[in-house]
């Protein structure tokens, strides 16, 4: 068991910086989720820890040891691939024994440990089968088993659930969390699925275009997104972002003037945007918007989506940007094309600069 540290790591493919100046520390025993849209460099980052990609700049350390030039087999980490990458010509038992065999574990102990792991994962009946004769979920468990059987320093998992159906995904998600908790092995878990990230990670590191955007505990990430990318990426749908300018009003209040109306700021928020006419981006989550006659913003209903317990109302604003309003199913639903006013919950407003970084409120000091 060990911590894993990326220190200013860069990886290029031609002109593409797949991973760009990544600095990140994963704690001993932590389950860190690497989250981001497809192509953002998650897999590349993980493969550099495994030793399957050469690090172009910076260092990767496992435990106290910089491993840039260490062969994959000498790193003592286990990887679960998206495709599972089971050995198709070997039985489940032999698949589980493979990593032990490479480490010279005697035959009897190998077999015992393979059976132990198979029992933990409910794979005992399938020990004699080959991967081709297993269902997707069973294969996934063999891949997990092959990783845990040799008690490595760290688990590296690359979207291990993406090939499973929805129900099995939820179930296995919980199983992996429980397993990691019990073993206490440092784990980097890669996914593009924010629900997986929110439910599984001790902390989540969000990446985009090879760059680390923010790393924080799930709730913190949701409540205080560090920039507009994280704000929009997390949540389904993500945070509404509305462009506007700061308007410091004569009577001392501060508002954000948008094409659809003025949103008044309160308390700490107001302290952020002191600079008159400063361009800003206003962020507010769908659940913090409400259709209400006295609302600050003016829009037209474009679409109403019924989700059972909730309803999503998609409105178009004067500048043709769209916002999503979430409301309870029992609330009155506006009709399509109807002009509405939308109220903003003042305490739940986030402010970002034009280029996306968060404007931090000055704590009342």
């Amino acid at each position, binding site marked *: 068991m060990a911590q894993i540290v990326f220190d200013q790591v860069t990886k290029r493919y031609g002109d593409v910086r797949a991973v760009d100046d990544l*600095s990140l520390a994963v704690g001993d025993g*932590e389950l860190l989720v690497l989250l981001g849209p497809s192509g953002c460099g998650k897999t590349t980052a993980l493969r550099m820890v495994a030793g399957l990609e050469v690090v172009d700049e910076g260092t990767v350390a496992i*435990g106290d040891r910089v491993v840039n030039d260490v062969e994959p087999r000498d790193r003592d980490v286990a990887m679960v691939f998206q495709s599972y990458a089971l050995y198709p010509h070997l039985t489940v038992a032999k698949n589980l024994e493979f990593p032990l065999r490479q480490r010279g574990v005697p035959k009897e102990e190998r077999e015992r440990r393979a059976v132990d792991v198979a029992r933990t994962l409910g794979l005992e009946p399938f020990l004699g089968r080959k991967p081709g004769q297993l269902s997707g979920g069973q294969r996934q468990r063999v891949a997990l088993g092959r990783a845990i059987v040799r008690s490595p320093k760290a688990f590296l998992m690359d979207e291990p659930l993406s090939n499973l159906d929805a129900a099995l995904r939820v179930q296995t998600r919980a199983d992996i969390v429980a397993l990691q908790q019990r073993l206490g092995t440092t784990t980097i878990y890669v996914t593009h699925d924010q629900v997986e990230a929110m439910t599984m990670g001790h902390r989540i590191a969000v990446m985009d275009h090879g760059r680390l*955007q*923010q*790393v*924080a505990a799930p709730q913190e990430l949701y409540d205080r997104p560090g920039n507009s990318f994280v704000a929009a990426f997390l949540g389904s749908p993500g945070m509404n972002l509305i462009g506007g300018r700061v308007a410091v009003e004569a009577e001392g209040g501060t508002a954000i003037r948008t094409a659809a109306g003025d949103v008044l700021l309160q308390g700490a928020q107001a302290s952020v945007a002191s600079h008159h006419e400063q361009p800003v981006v206003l962020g507010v989550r769908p659940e913090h918007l409400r259709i209400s006659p006295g609302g600050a913003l003016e829009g037209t209903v474009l679409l109403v989506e019924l989700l059972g317990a909730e309803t999503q109302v998609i409105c178009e604003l004067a500048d043709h940007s769209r916002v999503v309003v979430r409301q309870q199913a029992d609330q009155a639903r506006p009709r399509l094309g109807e002009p509405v006013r939308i109220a903003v919950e003042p305490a739940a407003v986030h402010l970002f600069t034009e280029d996306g970084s968060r404007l931090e409120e000055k704590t009342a000091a």
Partner: protein
Amino acid sequence: MPAEPVSDAPGAAAVLPAEGAVPRPQGAAPGEAHRPTPRAGRSRRRLRLVARYLLLTLGALVVLLPVYLTVVNSLLPEPALAHQPPYLYPSHAQWQNYSTAWVGGHLSIYLRNSVIQTAIIVVGQLVTSILAAYAFAFLRFPFRRTLFLLFLSTLMIPFEVTLITNLDTITSLGWYNTFAGLTVPFLATGFGTFLLRQAFLQIPRDLQEAAALDGYGHWRFMTRVAVPLARPSVAALAVFSFLGAWNQYLWPLVVTGNNNAVRTVQIGLKLLVGTNVSSVNVTLAGTVIAVTPLLILLIVFQKQLVRSLTAGAVK
């Protein structure tokens, strides 16, 4: 593994920078003492790379050496051939070996014959294979399966086994020493039919139904949709047929007579050995001439060639 319950998120985060994007891990460059000099690892990688290039180059030399020595010898004057130690490069190249081979060895006629023979076989194989493959892929008729197996069974019968009777047949048809005799036995191919049928089966049935609704008959569907969609396989078959036809040896040897009317270049090469024109250097010049078109073909159509040669190798 000691299943020691480890501190969960907050605990783990405590030792770590928990706020925002980590600027730089604390205690960065951890374990300075354990850091292996990166240079050592990099130079080890470089060494391995060099070793691999050496190995590749050695392999290339082994493959190319015979060809290289052939080119050298083809340019030497005759007495220089027996020189000891042998010349490893042509210090005074004698280019007229090539003109001697070309003129004295009648290579222009043989090459023309080879081109005609190969063109007939390639076109013929493409046409018969496309037609048959289309029928097997898109049409329903009694005994379709059996007939397809019959086509495949031709792959199991080596041509040499049919040599005796084919020679009789060609002779009694009056085709001895004609292009017909040279080519007609090869105007169909079980392999080609198989290859194109596989390609046609990749075309969704919906497409044929849609085309039928648009008023396309089978003929128009085949020529305007199926064949264009299967173009990579058709190209692969063309290259494969070309190679096979151009390099034929046994059949042209037995079915062409003692004049140059239809003799192909492969037979021409054999005749260069031990005729008056022949001295080894001239023979080798002829060899270089005969193989050059194919080397160009290889470089231009490598992808198609590889595709045709490996159909069946990979699941």
